[in-house]
């Protein structure tokens, strides 16, 4: 059966440059997403570890005060 829809399709050919650009863009997005993933998963695990108390802070030598106020310091009376 005759079908003129087949005849009206354009015959243009896509330049090679478009493939290179598409794949390069894809690689760039993948790289960016990989970095975001890495950052968010690391940050996520650090936050969850600190919340669960599994992060251990380095201990200070005896008698030395930490450079920031601690809960213990806050709890002690000021006078």
């Amino acid at each position, binding site marked *: *059966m*005759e*079908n*003129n*829809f*087949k*005849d*009206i*399709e*354009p*015959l*243009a*050919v*896509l*330049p090679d440059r*478009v*493939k290179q*650009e*598409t*794949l390069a*863009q*894809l*690689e760039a*997005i*993948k790289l960016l997403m990989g970095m975001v993933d890495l950052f968010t998963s690391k940050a996520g695990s650090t936050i969850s570890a600190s919340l669960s108390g599994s992060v251990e802070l380095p201990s200070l030598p005896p008698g030395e005060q930490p450079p920031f106020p601690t809960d213990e310091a806050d709890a002690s009376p000021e006078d």
Partner: protein
Amino acid sequence: MSRPTSTLTDDKLIALITTKGSTEHFGILYDRYANKVYRKCLSFVKNEEAAQDMVQEIFLKVFYQLSKFKGNSRFSTWLYAITYNYCVEQYRKIHKIKKVDIDDRLDVPHDDDEKELLAIRSEYLKIALDKISPEDKMILLMKYQDDTPIREIMTTLEISESAVKMRLARARKRVREIVKDMESIA
């Protein structure tokens, strides 16, 4: 000996791309279909540069949506559906046409001669397809240019069989009416 990657089926390539995120395999899929996608874009936007940008956008979209491809239709049908939807969207943006909801509950038009439609002279057919709505053009191209079975059109457009038939019949009718007008003037 392992099979050369270029002879792998679409499904095998898709599996490799979705599991390994392989751009090399995606490149093979690109080579198979990019020209087809380009020509479809061109038939909607009529501008080579714009159509090339659209091909890039479509393939980036496809890469990130590949995991959603369930194999309910051929890969080509799924890809062309994404292409057509994107083309319709772009066409609407360029021509500043608002989206209209399509009512599929109307009756199927009577005078529906498929043979007559397919025999319309190419130059008239081209003009008529540019005058109908982009959605009508999309469904006609899917059916008569890509030979997509009704069942696959249903799946990819997520509409019922009767809705596909209804839209096809209405689109055919519109094309025939436009061609009739052109012939009466000529």
